[in-house]
């Protein structure tokens, strides 16, 4: 740091306000979220800058590949593979060719848990990628990518129905909220699917898993930034018509109902919780009389702290 490079200083001081100067820091992930967003706005305006950003990002990857490989523990792979079934996948960005009319059938009759998932329309099967977003950067889930995803989820319902179908298929299980809302409520299903995908795509997504009292795997996925969470449970036993599973946010003020759901007894059930999650809340599930209770009347079958 003693051998200060004079020419560097001269150019540096003369160009602090030129957005193009952020190209290097951007590729190295050395910008704050705000700065990166600013640079991405600049990228949207400049083809030249987009090319530079892609090249410098590739250069950064070359640096990354120069790090000595490290063999992960075998436990890591095992744990990861076990999580796949309860980790919903995002549907492709370009609209699937599948018409929305097909989706109620799909959500009414979910595939068996082991059903082949390859039946889901893939991006490559879709017709011309009309909906391809103008994400300016090859980097995955940069904030530009995240914005593109959010934009996608703000799109009109027609597409979201298809998304709901895709998510339900990917999860390979039941759409939990459906049964208690009487007729299949497409709009509710859409909102649920969109919210779940949004949580999974959030920059601060976290998850915690535990087992229910009966030993089923339960996972809570949440984003503090969005104030949203979703619970995903495998093979949750079906309840009689007179009972529902009820969700609770349990914070300092005691339990607050976050909606009810049902399960077919096999496959994966999931439900995005109603209301707003506060960091540190515990999410609990109880069995309640059909329609839910004002306060929990039974011990929770599972409780997970966010």
């Amino acid at each position, binding site marked *: 740091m003693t051998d200060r*490079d004079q020419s*560097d200083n001269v150019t540096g001081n003369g160009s602090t306000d030129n957005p193009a100067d952020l190209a290097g820091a951007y590729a190295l992930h*050395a910008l704050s979220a705000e700065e990166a967003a600013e640079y991405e706005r600049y990228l949207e305006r400049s083809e030249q800058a987009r090319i530079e950003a892609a090249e410098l990002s590739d250069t950064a990857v070359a*640096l990354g590949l120069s790090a000595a490989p490290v063999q992960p523990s075998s436990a890591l792979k095992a744990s990861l593979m076990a999580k*796949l079934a309860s980790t919903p*996948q995002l549907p492709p960005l370009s609209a699937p060719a599948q018409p929305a009319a097909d989706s109620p059938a799909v959500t009414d009759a979910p595939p068996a848990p082991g059903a082949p*998932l390859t039946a889901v329309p*893939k991006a490559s099967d879709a017709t011309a990628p009309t909906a391809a977003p103008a994400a300016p950067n090859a980097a995955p889930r940069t904030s530009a990518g995240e914005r593109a995803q959010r934009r996608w989820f703000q799109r009109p319902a027609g597409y979201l129905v298809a998304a709901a179908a895709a998510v339900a298929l990917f999860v390979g299980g039941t759409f939990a909220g459906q049964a208690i809302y009487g007729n299949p409520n497409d709009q509710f299903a859409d909102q649920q699917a969109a919210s779940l995908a949004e949580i999974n795509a959030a920059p601060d997504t976290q*998850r915690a898993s535990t087992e229910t009292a009966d030993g089923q795997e339960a996972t809570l996925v949440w984003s503090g930034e969005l104030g949203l969470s979703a619970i995903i449970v495998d093979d949750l036993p079906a309840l009689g018509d007179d009972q529902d599973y009820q969700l609770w946010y349990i914070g300092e003020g005691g339990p607050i109902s976050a909606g009810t759901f049902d399960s077919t007894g096999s496959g994966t059930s999931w439900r995005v919780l109603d209301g707003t999650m506060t960091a540190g809340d515990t999410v609990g599930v109880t069995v309640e009389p059909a329609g839910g209770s004002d306060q929990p009347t039974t011990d929770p079958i599972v409780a997970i702290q966010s």
Partner: protein
Amino acid sequence: MLDLMTAEFNLDAASTAPSKEELLARVAGGDEAAFGELYDQIAPRVLGLVKRVLIDHAQSEEVTQEIFLEIWQTASRYESQRGGASTWIMTMAHRRAIDRIRSSQAGRERDTKIGIRDLAVPYDHVAETVEVRIEHERVEKAMSRLTELQRQAVSLSYFSGYSHREVAEFLHIPLGTVKTRLRDGLIRLRDELGVAS
């Protein structure tokens, strides 16, 4: 644009194993076996990079798990025409590692523990395949073509996870200078490594 990556990864694709791009496409369709294969192919590179940034092994494995879950979740968003699967994954891996540093005290504690480092960390040449060693040496050589100040700035931000503002503070130089060094440094590396569109 990805001649570099393609060339490198063809080296270890000696057999008829499916490419990472093919695997990723199958992962997007929910294929768990393809995911397992993709993991086997690239997890050591991912963990290698993450550990280079985070140092702590347990924490690095944790972040590696997050990265692979993100790969599983977002495989459908990978667009092969924008670049190779390795590039997509390694970019994601680096961003996740940096996010971890920024979001926790880990970064700060780590800094005080190890101090400033640069590319010349101890490197176990014995354990590596020829391909990996060639890559490493190529990058090292390219890094040596940078000015000392460019090299420091690039290394501090990429491997030590400093933001450009922190680099400026650390090196006691104006932010504008850091921006220029990072950009010029990467452009020089790009040219040395032959990364071009």
